Every structure is written in C-alpha cells, then in structure tokens.
C-alpha cells in the first residue's frame, strides 16, 4: 500500500482516475470511502436508457486526513459519462459537504476553542461537463442543493476546488467551483460555464472555433483563470503538486479564506462588476487582449511559457 501511495505522488493528475486522485491527495492510508463501489449505489436511470453504469456512479466521496484535519473529499471520474452529475453522484457530493459542516458543528460543541489544524475542510476535484442529461432534472436539483450547502459552510468549513482533469469543470459545476473559497488549477484544467461547442453554435465558427484547442485554453484554461484572478493557485500536473498546494492552503487560518474568494459578498460583486465594465470598455476579441491590458506585453508568449516562468513573470489582472 505504501509503495502505491508514494508512486501516485509523481503521477500526472490529468492521467490519474478519480479514486487515485482522492487517495493520493490525502495523507497515506487515511481515506475511508463513503458510498463506495462496495455499496453498489449506481444510477437507477441509466439502465432504463440502456447506458452502462458504474458502482460509485462516477464519483469518489469520503473522509480522510491531512495532518490532524478531517478532510471531506469528492473526486469526480471524468471518464464515466464525462463526469456528468446525476441523482446518485449529486447526492454524494451534497452529502459529503453536509457531513463536513456537521462534523464542524459537532467538534465545536464538544470544544469551543477548536484549533485551526483540526477544523474540517471540504475538497472537491472537479472533472465534469455539468448535469447528466440522462438524469437531467435530478442533476439540476443536486446543483441547487450543493450551492445551499456551500453557503451553510460559510464561517465554518473551508471549501477548496481542484481542477486538473481532461473534461475540466463546466456546466453547473462551473459556478459551484467558483463558489468555493479557494480554486487550485493546473494548466490542463479548464473552468467555465458553457462548453466550447455551445459557444460555437451560438456565435458561429468565425467568432469561436471549438476545435481550436489553443483558443479554448486561452478562454477557460488554468493560465487564463490565474491571470483573471479566478484561480488562486496554478500548479504542476502531478498529484504531489496539487497536494502540496492543498496542504499550504489548509494550513491557513479560516479568516484568510476571504482573500481567496471571488464571489460571495457585496464587495466581491462590486469588484466583478468593475471587470464587467472593463469588458465593455475593452471589447476584447480574445483573452490575449485582456492579458495585454493586465500588463503582459507579449501575450502570445504567455501560452507557451513554462509554469515556473509564468508564475514568476506574469501580470495578473487588477482593476481599481
């Protein structure tokens, strides 16, 4: 077992499956899966449509430790129905967040001066296109429950979004990920609301060519999100890199979380509206126009830069 966890650390986060990510992000051997494959709580709806099922319905949920901190984790499996959220997988994420908050309430009522290092946390690794169409309505409702649970965690339990999978984080999960306290991405990760094909459909191929991979990554990829301030930490593509960033962030006292958030208060909305004003004023044809405005003289070079160079030289967007 020990060899396996160690080996996972250097693996590509992108290439790992949802279970490997959950297992490798938390301290070795500490993960207890909840509603794991053994329970066989698969989708009741997919078989009706003749579609294959998965024993864990495409998401690993459970509890583990990082140091003394109980960490409630949800890790999506992007290879199963594109990581899309259905009734069971939706219920799993919603409930793991609720369990985290209830754990906090319980620990604090047992001990009012709960040390920060023991404050429970929520970690969600997103790898999803959003709602599972085969179970559309159930998936949709799960998203609303999740936002409600997120709000309940305010002041209690930090929520960290990790995005580094092949599918990225789109659809309803795009706003869920943004509603977290901290967002950690790799360059491979993408975060948005509407997928590239739908943008192309709406705007035409001349305006947005969904098959132009570079365009898609400029628009929603990790580097772009980092420049925009939507992503707080940009890390290398390995389990260890994500884990290191996670440990760093979870070591901070809860009071520091607000500095990472992008939405969730009047003040944050006012700041976002300044960005919207900028959007109208600048009328960018491409993200590169925004990168240039932010102070990156050679926006084309930004895309090809190594992570190290990027992190040490990039100018992030700031609006007064």
């Amino acid at each position, binding site marked *: 077992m020990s060899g396996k966890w160690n080996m996972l650390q250097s693996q590509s986060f992108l290439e790992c499956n949802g279970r490997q990510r959950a297992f490798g992000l938390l301290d070795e051997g500490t993960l207890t899966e909840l509603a794991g494959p053994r329970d066989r709580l698969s989708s009741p709806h997919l078989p009706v*449509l003749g579609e*294959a099922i998965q024993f864990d319905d495409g998401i690993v949920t459970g509890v583990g430790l990082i140091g003394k901190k109980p960490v409630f984790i949800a890790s999506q499996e992007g290879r199963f129905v594109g990581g899309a959220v259905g009734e069971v997988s939706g219920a799993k994420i919603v409930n793991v967040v609720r369990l985290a908050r209830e754990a906090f309430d319980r620990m604090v009522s047992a001990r009012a001066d709960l040390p920060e290092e023991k404050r429970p946390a929520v970690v969600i690794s997103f790898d999803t296109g959003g709602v599972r169409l085969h179970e559309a309505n159930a998936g949709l409702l799960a998203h609303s429950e999740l936002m409600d649970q997120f709000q309940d965690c305010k002041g209690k339990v930090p929520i960290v979004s990790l995005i580094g999978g092949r599918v990225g984080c789109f659809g309803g999960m795009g706003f869920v990920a943004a509603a977290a306290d901290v967002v950690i991405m790799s360059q491979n990760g993408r975060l948005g609301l509407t997928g590239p094909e739908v943008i192309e459909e709406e705007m035409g191929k001349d305006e947005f060519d969904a098959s132009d991979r570079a365009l898609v990554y400029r628009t929603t990829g990790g580097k772009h999100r980092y420049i925009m301030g939507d992503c707080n930490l940009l890390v290398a593509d390995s389990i260890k890199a994500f884990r290191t960033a996670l440990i760093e962030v979870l070591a901070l006292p809860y009071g520091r979380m607000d500095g990472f958030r992008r939405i969730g208060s009047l003040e944050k909305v006012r700041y976002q509206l300044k960005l919207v004003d900028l959007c109208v004023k600048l009328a960018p044809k491409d993200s590169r126009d925004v990168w240039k405005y932010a102070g990156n003289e050679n926006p084309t070079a930004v895309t090809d830069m190594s992570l190290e160079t990027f992190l040490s030289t990039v100018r992030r967007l700031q609006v007064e």
Partner: protein
Amino acid sequence: MRKKLNRLDFEFKADKAKDFPADFVHYGVVGSGDMEIIIEKKPLDGAIRVTVLTPVSGFDEVWRRVLYRFVKETHIGNASIEINDCNATPVVGSLRLRQALAEIS
C-alpha cells in the same frame, strides 16, 4: 437508437480451484471502451459466478470465452465477479480481469 443494458450471467468451475484470497476487490473505470470489476469472496463450492452488465448485445459467447479462459488460467474459485462494461474489447476485458486480481497484494 434505442439501447438496452444487457445482463449476462455465467458460472464456471476451474480445475483445482483455489479460494479467492481476499474479501473484496474493485478495479477499473467505466470509460468508453473500458470496464470495472468487483470480485467478492463467496462460498460457491469452488465455482465462480459472473454477472456482466453491458450496453452491447450479441457478444455473449465472446464474454464466455474471455471469462472461461480467465478462470481456467488463474484457478480462481469461490467468488462472484461483477462487471460493468462499456464496450470493452476482449483484449481490454482480459487485461482488466488480470489487473483486478493483481490488486490483491
């Protein structure tokens, strides 16, 4: 098209069947062209019972051959095998079965 999730059931008994050496093992992801497996210890008088859920029809014999070969070569006995398939080829199927066994160590 109209699809159907098919359920296939098989039972095999290997020569010199060895008891499946773990309680429970799970392996794999139900990606396109792939499958996941649960193998669970079960007293079946040395036999292996397999259930496959697959959206593909008409490949019962192919499954039977793959599974029979697996049981014969590994001498595995007294266990149930559950497979969620999403169009895996026999090559992938055989590989995953072996990988599932290798999980126990």
